[in-house]
């Protein structure tokens, strides 16, 4: 076994082709499951492996599958390939380089819950990725790996690719389902959860691309093999998307909990340090724009779900963006708030109105028209939003605000214009003072 479990194409050229994939053990897990395992055994194996969802929430995958009712049909598997979190580009590499491993994982999920259809929902901008994936699916169909009576069994399954239209919110699983149904991408109120009320109101499993790419090796090699990697609570390999002010950004596969932020940023086989010897890390965004930023003091935190949470943030999709000492934190927070304001779906009040309000306050801050109470106001608006929104996006939007205020409040204060000198008493009505001009 090579160094990679997920990014195997880095070692095996042309792995996206079915013949190459088959030569390297491809669809062995699929064959094994179909011919020698019951659906429940597949679920049990995945449960036992401790695999946790790689989309960001980290929910145990096998447990999710086991929530699907047994006797309600039809059922669906939906692959969440709407990779939209800023700084996240791992699913894209899997789909381009190792698409059959995703397809195989999705098929295994479908078999496990006895779904009859798999839909892959890909973000609209990934048009070329979708073509690559469609080609791979066509190859698998032609080889009898998908379709009616797969591999001569009485199990039939279909797989379709659907391109989204470019909304970040459609990465949220219920908004994704709405969009897939042809409706506007608004998240649904939960409960009910997709496991019981998903696509077209039917039981549905929604899994991230990377999550499903973990499934074939688990089925082939067993849960105990899988548990030899990572930590007790966060087993297995993980792709870390590294970007920002680093020398060598990119995807890095490593076992969960075995490396730290420092290893990832500075390690020779990883990021190889910052852009410039004299630069220092100012802040780390562990999960794109969505999770609270961490100061440099968190550099030695191991990269697994529990440790990052203990440090005050979330590992999420593990899209680590590094901000060095040249980065203006207020500007960075503003950029992220603007992103969330642009992507807020508008369905619920606190997110729709809150992100707009936050953005207006940041706009005046960065334009040099900030007011002394603006940091307090930002904090108050963010706290008014947090915990009250219909889906997590509204909470995400408060992360850059609250975490930057927590760790870098001084930078905000620098944005508040100070009077140049003590005000001179002037006759009433003769002088108009405009703060910040």
């Amino acid at each position: 076994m090579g160094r990679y479990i997920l990014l195997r194409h880095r070692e095996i050229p042309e792995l996206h082709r079915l013949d190459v994939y088959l030569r390297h053990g491809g669809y062995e897990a699929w064959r094994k499951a179909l011919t020698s395992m019951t659906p429940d055994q597949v679920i049990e194996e995945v449960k036992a492996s401790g695999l946790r969802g790689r989309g960001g929430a980290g929910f145990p995958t096998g447990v999710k599958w086991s929530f699907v009712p047994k006797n309600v049909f039809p059922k669906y598997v939906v692959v969440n390939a709407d990779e939209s979190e800023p700084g996240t580009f791992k699913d894209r590499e899997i789909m381009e380089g190792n698409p059959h491993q995703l397809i195989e994982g999705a098929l295994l999920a479908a078999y496990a819950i006895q779904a009859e259809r798999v839909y892959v929902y890909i973000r609209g901008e990934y048009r070329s990725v979708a073509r690559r994936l469609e080609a791979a699916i066509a190859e698998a169909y032609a080889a009898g790996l998908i379709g009616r009576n797969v591999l001569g069994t009485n199990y039939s399954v279909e797989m379709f690719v659907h391109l989204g239209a470019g909304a970040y919110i459609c990465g949220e699983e219920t908004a994704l389902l709405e969009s897939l149904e042809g409706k506007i991408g608004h998240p649904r109120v939960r409960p009910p959860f997709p496991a019981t009320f998903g696509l077209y109101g039917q039981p549905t499993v929604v899994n991230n691309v990377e999550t499903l790419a973990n499934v074939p090796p688990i089925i082939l090699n067993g849960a105990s093999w899988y548990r030899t990697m990572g930590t007790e609570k966060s087993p297995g390999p993980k792709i870390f998307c590294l970007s920002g002010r680093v020398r060598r950004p990119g995807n890095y596969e490593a076992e969960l909990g075995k490396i730290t932020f420092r290893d990832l940023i500075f390690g020779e086989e990883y990021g190889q340090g910052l852009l410039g010897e004299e630069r220092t890390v100012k802040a780390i965004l562990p999960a794109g724009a969505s999770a609270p930023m961490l100061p440099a003091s968190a550099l030695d935190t191991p990269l697994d779900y529990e440790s990052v949470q203990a440090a005050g943030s979330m590992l999420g999709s593990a899209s680590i963006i590094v901000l060095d000492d040249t980065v203006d934190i207020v500007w960075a927070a503003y950029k992220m708030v603007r992103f969330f304001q642009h992507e807020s779906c508008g369905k619920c009040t606190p997110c729709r109105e809150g992100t707009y309000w936050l953005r207006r306050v940041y706009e005046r801050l960065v334009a040099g028209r900030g007011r002394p109470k603006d940091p307090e106001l930002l904090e108050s608006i963010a706290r008014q939003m947090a915990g009250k929104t219909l889906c997590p996006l509204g909470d995400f939007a408060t992360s850059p605000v609250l975490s930057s205020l927590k760790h870098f409040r001084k930078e905000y204060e620098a944005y508040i214009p100070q009077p140049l000198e003590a005000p001179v008493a002037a006759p009433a009505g003769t002088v108009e003072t405009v703060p910040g001009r």
Partner: protein
Amino acid sequence: MTGTVRVIINDRPIEVPAGTLVVDAAKRLGVDIPVFCYHPKLEPAGMCRMCLVEIGMIKMDPQTRQPMRDEEGRPVIQWMPRLQTACTTRVAEGMVVRTNTLQVQEAQRAILEFLLTSHPLDCPICDKGGECPLQNLTMRYGPGESRFDYADKMHQEKRVPLGDLILLDRERCILCGRCIRFQEEIADDPVLGFSDRGRGMEIITFSDPPFASYFSGNTTDICPVGALTTTDFRFRARPWEMTPIPSICPHCPVGCNITLDVRPSARKGGWDILRVMPRQHEAVNEIWICDKGRFVHHFATAEDRLRQPLIRRNGELTPVSWEDVLEVVAEALSRAGPQAAGLVGDRLPNEDLYLFRRLFGEALGSSWISMDPPIFGGEWVARYGVGTGTDFGQMRPGSLIVVMAGDLEEEAPVWFLRVRGAVRRGARLIVAGGKPQKAERYADLILRYRFGTEALVLVGALQVLLDENRVAPEVLPRLDGLEALRKALEGYPLDFIGQRTGVPVEQIRAFARAIAEAGEVVLIFGREGVVDGEAFVGMAANVLALTGHVGRPNNGLLPLWPHANTQGALDFIGARPLPEEVPVLYVVGADPVGDGRPMPRAGFLIVQDLFLTETARMADVVLPAQSWAERDGTFTSAERRVQRFYKAIPAVGEARGDWEIFIAIALRLGQRWRYLSPEAVMDEIARTDPRYAGMDYGALAWTQPQWPPVGTSRDLYFGGTARPNTAGLGRVRPSEAETPEARWPLAWKAPEIPSEESILAIPTRRLYQEGTLIARTPHLRGRTVPWAARMHPETARRLGLEAGQMAVVRVNGQTLRLPALVDPSVPSQVILLPASLTARAGVVEALPVKFRVEVGNGALPR
């Protein structure tokens, strides 16, 4: 989810049905949880986040299954980490809810502050100001002031037409989606939606024509802000300037409870009706009305209302005083005596119909009176009409609704809504008709028969019921005429019926079985294309009586009568043929000439109406009558619910109530009538007519609390939705079958069936058919259905007609000329004609007749 569960809300326990939403459970306790997007008639959306509350569960000891208790003996509560939306959370046993803690209050303030950041705060010019949930809830729960910079407000379009009737103010809209959900869930015209996202999100309509729905006005009621307004009412008055007068919609037999909001008006030189709002009656219209009911009120205050009596002098109708005209009328009538004839429309209130009958019967000794239009089936409705207590809102699995020979949405829009609601709750629906209709979307079974064979379809159903021994055993002893019926049916083998009706025999079987097996059956019948009305309604009555579906709530016949008081006209006047020639004819509230119906030739013609109708133009004397808005009265709905309406505006000009005119004539004819008001007339009816026993105005004003409690004075969040009903829920006059000892007779009449080759002219009722009343509401001009003869292209070809040409249609000896319209959705072999042609309050009801049709080219007659 069955049974009840116990929950604790603000330390007060309550037991509610399982599945109740927390917000409703709180409401039952009198605890207000503020909401915007939630509406008790709509599915919860959880969007506005106004209803956030603390929710927890009592912790149970797994061993003892008793609540765990702290040191002080109080149950330990496991609170959820976040606030929860009360509008989406359903109660569960042991749930604890807190709606008034600091945390909840902070959330309420936060949501309101957020909402107001995008709201224009133009309350001083907003139609909703004064009855606005956003205003009310801000006053009660909101922050005193906003920290949002006014200069940061986004400005958006303030006058976006969503069709001819509804305007959208994008700035005021808080994107709660109530209007979208109403259109999807209640009206099933899903023509509204959200477009774009975030702060750019907006309500759009995507139908052509825009906002195509008969129910669009309801969205302005349930809009919790002033975002949706009607083109009719916008900027015309503030809510507190108007006096709300309880009334009953005068347009169709549903009898929707409404409120007329009136105000003195300089423009009208008197009082004006500014808007019509629904008034809550959960067993009639819930909180909805159709757009016709909402917008077609302008006729009452129209410029061209008759304002003075007219008399023909030198060939011209000339104004004359009431004193003089009444002398002339009384003189003419007394001269004719028992030879005098009367024709009266079915929009007149009960009191007036009663006095009209007395005038002819007692003062003149004449029995020559008839209602116009003549209606069939009245005696069967009196016997087997739906039982007292019938309510579509109570129909559930086990209930069956049959719609036959009528278009539910076009003829009784609010019944359409309610039938759809019943189907959503699990009732079944069967639709039988000659052409498609919207209600078929929800039907389990659709019987598409050849127009004219509807009675035969029912004969088929009877055949199946008897063949399969499906007569309800418990009703056998009450039935009269079963053997005769059995014998008569022998001449109608099922195969023959299937072949003549065009309905597969299996479908007829399924139809009959569904009726036999259902727990409750309401059969709604119309007159569309009915050739043999007597046989049709008789067979429908047989089907229900045989299966025991009469004489109880949610069972029986429900007629799609044409007008608001057709039932009253049947009760007090009835339909009978008049002589072809009479010395004096008194036509009240009817326009047979304009409607193309035969009318006796009269030596002297008296017409009493709101407008100078075609009939009135021929009259010797014209008497100006009052509209329903100008006087008190009662209508009897098709469910036989007698309901009061109240005087809303003073008389227009010198117009008098029909009842007053009848009294004045009767006094001149020597009668000693002493009625001072319609109420006195109704008192007498309630004393003397056993069918209306006890239905005096006091009894009809009876009310009781209704659920959901919308629009009540202490309600903060459904303001403007609908008015509470404080003026009376009316009384239902029971059907004869409800009497315990009543016999249940069965009918037999061999149905007349048109030959298969004949082309039938089908009078078709459309909600917005061109007519006297609707023409006076300019807002609906773009939606009215023009007068035309609609037919399939194949039929047109056979008749040698081209689209747009004038067709001359002779039906039963009458000649109608109207443009031909080619429409592939019309079945072949039929021509659809408007059931009302011109008309005022009388309207046309072309008869259920054997139409012989001749079509040719011709010129417009007028």
